[in-house]
């Protein structure tokens, strides 16, 4: 019976009485118990989840109207606030912090009868591409435990990958949902900037962050997005655009697509030869199916990652200033020091190395004397990229690319050289820089046994097309 092939299949079984929510939660708790070495969860809300399941079973028995995600077991990345629950951003800085409010996305999940089973491990403050930067131990890829699951939402990816929940929420600032999805062989969706409220998402880079979804199928991702998307009184950057019924709009009726790929992306010297080869074959397959697939020039590929790191570290350096040990979080035990030293000690003790690096770089690019050359410059390049994205989507339905230049690497392979790791984001950061929706689809398997995906990007708020195209592509393989 488990795992169900989709939420739909599961909910059918629920209504026909084949399975109950309590059965389901029990099953997932067992899975979590059997996979503790993967370290995908920082905390499991076992009793609560069973209690919630029991109430939902009762609700169904009483014939009450059921939520869209009725009984669906969801895990949330440890950067998403859940009232009354700890949230630590995988950091010692707020290791014992309990949130006093719900993230809007969490409220929406609960309103539609989802069951939140636990919080997932990740890179500290979402900064990383391997989930090696957690203060609470690394996360392991279930397909090969000597390899990283990707990051920063590694735990959320593994939770779905290893059948420890049906769907999970992560966050994507530069690829932190798509890249782990690629490494773990599942679907990873990043919505358009402003599609999902950021209220309750611990901010890394405010103009880049979006809550993203991990799922086994595009159908499940679409349904989940439908639930968590939409306006919110508490987020000034959320879009007022109506949320389409994503789950009902998955069929494209044999539409033939006009797709583009960046010439430079496939020519990039860091791209694994086999990945390139398989993707080119897939492109040929698409053409054979009657779709148009064309290479286009993207002369800025070498600049996307530097632009991304200047802007995100700048915003992060400011967003992380609230972590000072005064109202919450770690305060140093050192005595007899002045206020400045108190701040320095608390923050230096609380933040891990990568976080400190990024705060320092962010402070640098914003500081007087360097601001124009780095920060303003990066904002100008972002403008150019944004204009370019508009131009591209005027001519094409979607852009496709590899999600990552390589498959999941082994632990420690890249952790000594931060900038080498940064380049792993080369294909994913573009979507965050310009605010478009993007997904990684688990279409391929490498000869090294690891999975890898195809990234598909559509224009702003074109998730319907993105889902439809994704469905087509998934069925091709």
């Amino acid at each position, binding site marked *: 019976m488990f795992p169900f092939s989709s939420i739909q299949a599961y909910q059918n079984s629920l209504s026909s009485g084949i399975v109950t929510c309590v059965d389901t939660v029990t099953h997932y708790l067992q899975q979590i118990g059997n996979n503790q070495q993967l370290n995908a969860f920082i905390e499991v809300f076992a009793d609560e989840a069973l209690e919630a399941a029991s109430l939902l079973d009762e609700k169904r028995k009483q014939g009450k109207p059921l939520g869209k995600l009725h009984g669906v077991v969801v895990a949330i990345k440890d950067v998403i606030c859940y009232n009354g629950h700890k949230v630590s951003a995988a950091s010692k800085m707020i290791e014992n912090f309990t*949130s006093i409010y719900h993230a809007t996305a969490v409220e929406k999940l609960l309103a539609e009868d989802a069951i939140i089973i636990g919080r997932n491990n990740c890179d500290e403050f979402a900064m990383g591409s391997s989930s090696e930067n957690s203060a609470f131990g690394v996360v392991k890829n279930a397909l090969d435990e000597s390899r990283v699951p990707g990051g920063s939402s590694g735990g959320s990816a593994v939770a779905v990958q290893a059948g420890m929940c049906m769907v999970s929420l992560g966050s994507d600032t530069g690829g932190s949902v798509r890249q782990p999805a690629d490494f773990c062989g599942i679907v990873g969706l990043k919505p358009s900037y402003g599609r999902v409220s*950021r209220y*309750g998402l611990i901010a890394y880079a*405010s103009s880049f962050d979006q809550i993203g979804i991990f799922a086994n199928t595009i159908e499940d991702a679409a349904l989940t997005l439908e639930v968590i998307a939409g306006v919110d009184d*508490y987020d*000034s950057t959320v879009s007022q655009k109506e949320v389409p019924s994503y789950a009902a709009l998955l069929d494209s009726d044999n539409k033939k697509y006009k797709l583009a790929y960046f010439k430079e992306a496939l020519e990039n010297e860091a791209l694994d030869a086999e990945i390139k080869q398989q993707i080119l074959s897939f492109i040929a397959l698409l053409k054979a199916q009657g779709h148009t697939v064309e290479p286009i020039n993207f002369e800025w590929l070498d600049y996307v990652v530097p632009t991304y790191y200047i802007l995100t570290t700048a915003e992060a350096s400011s967003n992380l200033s*609230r972590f000072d040990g005064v109202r919450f979080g770690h305060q140093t035990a050192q005595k007899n020091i002045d206020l400045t030293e108190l701040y320095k000690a608390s923050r230096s003790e609380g933040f891990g190395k990568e976080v400190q690096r990024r705060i320092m770089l962010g402070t640098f690019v914003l500081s007087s004397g360097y601001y124009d050359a780095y920060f303003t410059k990066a904002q100008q390049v972002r403008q150019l990229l944004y204009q370019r994205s508009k131009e591209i989507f005027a001519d094409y339905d979607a852009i496709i690319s590899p999600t990552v230049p390589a498959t999941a690497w082994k632990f420690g392979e890249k952790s000594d050289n931060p900038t080498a790791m940064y380049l792993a984001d080369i294909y994913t950061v573009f979507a965050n820089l310009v605010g478009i929706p993007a997904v990684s689809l688990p279409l391929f398997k490498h000869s090294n046994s690891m999975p890898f995906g195809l990234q598909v990007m559509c224009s702003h708020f074109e998730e319907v097309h993105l889902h439809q195209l994704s469905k087509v592509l998934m069925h091709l393989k």
Partner: protein
Amino acid sequence: MAFFIAFIYSNNKFTTSPLLLSLQIEMTNISDKYETVIGLEIHAQLQTQTKLFCGDSIAFGAAPNTHVSPITLGHPGTLPKTNKVAVAYAIKMGLACNCKIERDNYFARKNYFYPDLPKGYQISQHTTPICVGGYVTINTSTGQKNIELNRIHIEEDAGKSMHDLDEQFTCIDLNRAGTPLIEIVTEPCIHSSDEAFEYVSEARRLVQWIGVCDGNMEEGSLRCDANISIRLKGATTLGTRVEVKNLNSIRNVKKAIEFEVQRMIEIVENGGTIIQQTRSFDASNDTTFSIRDKEDANDYRYFADPDLAPFHLTESFIEDIRKSLPALPLQLIQQFQQSFGLTIYDANNLCADTATAEYFLEVSRYSTHYKAIANWMLGPIKQQLNETAKDFSTLLLLPQTLAELIAIVEAGKVNFSVASYKILPELLNGNNSPLAIAEAMNLLQVSDTKELERWIDEALEGMPDKVAEYKRGKKGLIGLFVGEIKKISKGKADPKMVTTLLQEKLK
């Protein structure tokens, strides 16, 4: 200079000797060498219901940390959302000060660390103010002057750090954190402590007048920082400036400037250099002291806040606000002088706030004794209001009733002092009939000559020697006689008539 000092010391007398006088003149001459240049920054808390970026109350005086939300607390994941009324109030002040209103706006983050700054940054419009330029007109000894403004911008207030509540700890109350402020910044075009005094008074009146701030400096709704420098008269570059903070009364603004200017002049005269620094004002002895040198100056790393969408102000939005502006004090003061023949002094005082001005205008509908109205309002009634901490908006004495009272005094039916001491208190309690009160209390003035003559005779009979003295030339004694007659008549004798009759009788 030294010669003068030696001379005075040897004389051992500190009278206003010609020598001491010339020393004073010498000192004034030194001061005259210098021009004072002042720029003032006023922070005014907007009178909204809730904070600038979230829905916590901003009501004053609440128990510590009871007006807080996750947003105020800067909890991870929280986001700001702009209070529309705060924006409208900022525009209102901008229009009242003749500023140019920026159509395209956004907020920026000012990054620095302090315990009462929950996010580790303040959301401000420092770099892109909503109102640019403008001016506030003040009255000076040499006529009206426009104090040029540089800008007015919106920002959030910080919480409060209290260092004296606990021996070991600084205590932080975040009730105030997030309160909407406008910062009104002048150009460095103020040149004396008197001008500064006038400007702050006028700015305070203006924010209260248009209803955007209650102007309460003791409670901190209005705060002033001064940037002060001196330079030799005729110099074109500005001298090193010093910032003085913590000026919580208009008087303190004046005193702080006076002290600073003197301090600076002394430094320069003694060959020293003025250090650019931040100072605080000590109200216990009207001095300033250093709290921060420039070396500690922060790099605030301002950047556009990505959590707040930019906003574009439409013409109609601004017009609606413009229409909601009442006639401003200066306009009204002119009007009061022209239409009612009042002095600038009376007009200015009647326009201290909208409640007073409105009350006057109301009374003027029922009475043309404008000067008398002013006297009553600014004299006995104001006194009562001060004692009971009330204002003209809550006065139980109706404008029409005051007009009646004035009418009977002008008609001589009661005299002013009886009216103010005996009748007014009743009227202030809500009794609306001055004539009835006068009758009931037997206060109506007697102008009947026979009656008056009776009292006069009674009084004079009682003090024959004084009468004799008067007749011998001590004309000042008439006041004594009038006073005695007042007593005998229980205040009912019309003092004017009594005086005339006395003078006749005692010729």
